[in-house]
């Protein structure tokens, strides 16, 4: 995309992002993008950054200079996100890049993940924290294997909102028929997955159609522009405000002469709402008490909810340490050492094998685990289950049974993305080698 085309972007888009000290409080939306350079993903990101005034002239100048030196015919915006020397030299993207932009309504964090098959690891990483995932397809090519794989990974990671961008509509004569065929096919595929919310938008990232403003070239499309959707998609309810889960991160006990006998349990609320006076239970001990106060450095608060970082004080002196969890007596997670989980393997040096031992980190709790069984390896293109598999290699996904040395205080991942996920660590190399989503804990 040339800078001239970008500069002609719709004037409405030039609303200054975030001027004035929080005139209207913005909220935060994290989204992951999936697709390859060929789908126009970099062009789309470049356009979003440019149209929200988040792309700077020196960044653009640097990219133009490198593009010219390489003999590219147009300013290659992929160079904006390809930050490492190896990536620029090889023309590939090897890692998740984080980009930021804001409009007066929202601040956005993009986890930009490369689309190639070997980078399932990156897609899973980007999707793990995403409120929304954006999948791009080229209108001329329609759905490809990669689009289905991305949709599957988003559903596996329980990304609450999915947006399919049918890009390059300008190259199919803005055809409603082409768009609807792709939208129908994708919707049918998504129905087989766990996709709670799907939106399909026909766009031309290069020309800016349906990015910020509604396109005049596609009057038949009655939905919102992409940015309009990103700004307004309702994410507040994605949080679980029902199940109280407060993993204790750190015990605050001031060694001071002015503050004595203070004992507070610091942590970030994973789910639910905590209030002073609430009866609570502490796991794994099972002791009960009441919340005496919920505090922050700015003073006590009436309620704590996700994603607040607070300090909880209890009415009774109970022995509580890091890795314990505060919940309600009538709504507790499993206290479990036998864990069934979907595991995405992320290590290129050694596969996951039955019988192997690993370290794991689950909420604020560390444990060791032994792999008791591998039920199947999943072909993420066909969703076929290979039950003869005896190992998981890099980027492979399978259902695994683990036994842990100490109980995990765990929920199903589909119910709770914080208390339902854990990482697997190689004890020798200390590398993070796997991501696990709990299916069942007992």
């Amino acid at each position: 995309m040339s800078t001239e085309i970008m500069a002609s972007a719709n004037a409405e888009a030039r609303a200054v992002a975030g001027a004035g000290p929080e005139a209207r409080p913005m909220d935060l939306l994290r989204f992951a993008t999936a697709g390859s350079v060929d789908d126009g993903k970099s062009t789309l990101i470049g356009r979003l950054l440019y149209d929200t005034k988040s792309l700077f002239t020196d960044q653009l100048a640097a990219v133009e200079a490198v593009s010219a030196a390489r003999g590219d015919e147009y300013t290659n915006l992929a160079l904006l996100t390809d930050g490492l020397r190896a990536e620029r030299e090889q023309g590939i993207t090897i890692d998740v890049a984080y980009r930021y932009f804001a409009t007066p309504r929202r601040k956005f964090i993009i986890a930009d993940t490369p689309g190639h098959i070997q980078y399932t690891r990156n897609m899973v990483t980007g999707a793990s924290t995403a409120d929304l995932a954006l999948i791009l397809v080229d209108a001329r090519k329609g759905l490809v294997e990669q689009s289905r794989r991305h949709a599957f990974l988003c559903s596996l990671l329980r990304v609450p909102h999915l947006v399919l961008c049918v890009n390059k509509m300008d190259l199919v004569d803005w055809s409603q028929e082409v768009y609807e065929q792709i939208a129908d096919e994708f919707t049918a595929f998504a129905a087989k997955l766990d996709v709670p919310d799907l939106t399909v938008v026909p766009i031309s990232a290069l020309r800016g159609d349906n990015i910020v403003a509604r396109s005049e070239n596609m009057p038949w499309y009655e939905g919102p522009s992409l940015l309009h959707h990103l700004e307004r998609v309702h994410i507040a309810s994605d949080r679980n405000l029902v199940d109280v889960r407060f993993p204790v991160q750190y015990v605050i006990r001031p060694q001071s002469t002015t503050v004595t006998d203070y004992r507070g349990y610091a942590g970030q609320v994973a789910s639910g709402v905590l209030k002073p006076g609430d009866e609570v239970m502490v796991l794994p001990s099972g002791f009960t008490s009441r919340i005496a106060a919920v505090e922050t450095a700015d003073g006590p608060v009436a309620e704590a909810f996700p994603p607040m970082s607070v300090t909880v004080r209890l009415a009774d002196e109970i022995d509580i340490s890091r890795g314990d969890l505060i919940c309600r007596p009538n709504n507790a997670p499993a206290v479990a050492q036998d864990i069934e989980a979907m595991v995405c393997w992320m290590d290129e040096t050694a596969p996951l094998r039955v019988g192997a031992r690993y370290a794991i980190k689950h909420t604020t709790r560390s444990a060791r685990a032994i792999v008791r069984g591998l039920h199947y390896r999943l072909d993420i293109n066909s969703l076929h289950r290979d039950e003869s598999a005896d190992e998981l290699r890099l980027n492979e996904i399978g259902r695994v049974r683990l036994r842990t040395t100490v109980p995990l205080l765990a929920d199903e991942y589909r119910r709770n993305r914080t208390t339902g996920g854990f990482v697997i660590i190689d004890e020798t190399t200390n590398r993070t080698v796997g991501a696990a989503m709990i299916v069942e804990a007992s």
Partner: protein
Amino acid sequence: MTTPAAYRVSHLDALEAESIFVMREVVAEMERPVLLFSGGKDSIVMLRLAQKAFAPANIPFPVMHVDTGHNFPEVLEYRDQRVAELGLQLVVASVPEALANGMVREASDGTRNRIQTPVLLDAVEKHRFDALFGGARRDEEKARAKERVFSFRDEFGQWDPKNQRPELWSLYNGRHHPGESIRIFPLSNWTELDVWHYIARERIPLPSIYYAHEREVIERDGMFYAVNEFFRPRAGEERFKAQVRYRTVGDASCTAAVRSDADTVEKVIEEVAATRITERGATRGDDRVSEAAMEDRKREGYF
């Protein structure tokens, strides 16, 4: 289920909660953390977050200043004042001392950006620090856009961008062998504008050079450098007085000012929101050396 308006969380609250979570993880899991404190706005915000994370207890780790000897006096004064107020232990890793005892040699152009790295690594080894909080943000520079919140360094302090640990959910892996360390970037997801909004909201005092003031400068490569004992004009460069402020605070021999009338935090926010040049692009001679200048320095163990 609908969410009552009371459960709204602003982007600054979400960023603050995430940063506090990161700092508590480090203190809970690592042996000897230290916070890199330059007196720059990002490290100042980091220090405020540390106060909040452990209140009412004191900040449970020391701070370290990698002192190039090329300091803005206003910044040094600020540093000492903050350290005294908070009762912190200050470790100074001194480049002038390292020059005097022969550990490093002055670069031919007199800049000390690059020779900070061995001085930093030496202090890390001497004090056996295993976790170093840094104020770097991913929006600053494109090599940083790909760095983890917990960034592993080998026993030589080196960053290997192709061999980074996957970082999922909020599960940070700080495991390391003796001699290795982890750089921690609690402000990874903050932008320059977020930092300024937070400074305004929290009414955090800053060194005066962040606000517009009159200063004698010369113009070089489109940037305005203050004339002082560390920065000498070249032949033909003309000194003049200008209304400027600093967007970043680093080594006084390679950090430039920008023309500005913004003398309050509100005016700075307006200016930052409207600007079209990144802060490092506008103010850091050291990043302009090559396309991969930052990446190369990070590989060697830079912040």
